């Protein structure tokens, strides 16, 4: 089993874990008002997008195949 496969597997599992946790955080943040909360919401949403990208990369949908 190559290092690349381990890395892919690790990325796959952890991006799901982090992405789901962040989604829950975002849901909890939704009712909060104030400028800091607004910015946090936007940034959390973009970070979840990042997790999706990492997930896609780990299954080789995006990025260089190796």
């Amino acid at each position, binding site marked *: 089993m190559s290092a*690349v496969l381990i*890395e*892919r597997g*690790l*990325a796959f599992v*952890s*991006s799901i*874990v*982090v*992405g789901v*946790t*962040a989604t829950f*955080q975002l849901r*909890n943040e939704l*009712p*909060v008002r*104030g*400028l*800091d909360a607004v*910015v*946090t919401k936007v*940034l*959390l949403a*973009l*970070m979840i*997008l*990042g*997790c999706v*990208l*990492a997930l*896609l*990369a*780990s299954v080789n949908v*995006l*990025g*260089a195949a*190796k």
Partner: protein
Amino acid sequence: MATTTLTGHAAVEARYNDVDPVYAETRDMRLLGFVLVLFSDCILFSSFIFAYLYLRTSAPVWPPFVDGHQLPRLDTAFAAVNSVVLFGSGVTMHFALENWKNLKKGAFNMWMILTIILGIAFLGGQAHEYLSAQMTWQGSAFGASFFTLTGMHGFHVFVGVVYLTVLLVQANRGVYTGSKYFGLTAGTLYWHFVDVIWVLLFYLFYLW
């Protein structure tokens, strides 16, 4: 004003508002100021991203050739792990602030330390990326934009790690209270911001 019957968001909000007007006004101004600073930082990254897009779209092939050999595409497997490390640190930072707002200092410390460790781990991963990179800063437009942008981002992460460490020490010295914790809010916003910049860079350099 703080009552024991309130729980959850309501309690947090009540504590948040239970400050003297001078602090409330200062906090308001600092928050706006800090968000504006992040916004202008965003412009800084955008300018370099524009440069990268410009150079990339005007190149005949990508990745470009240097000395007769086409540069390899960047390896996504390791970068994906490293990205998730950084995103994970964003999640732990968020937990840290939530715990502070809910007056759970032990959990706050635990999450903060975890965040700092993840931040350092990300920097270590970047160092590995740099050392194993098959291109140079000077050699091509690809190298120039890659090392400049990720370098700027890495610098931001480094500053963030120092910043969070200072916040952790301050929090344990009693600088912040359950009502007055603007520094922690700013730290969290900064850390989320650094994460989000990485989302862009990750896509643009590794996945596109």
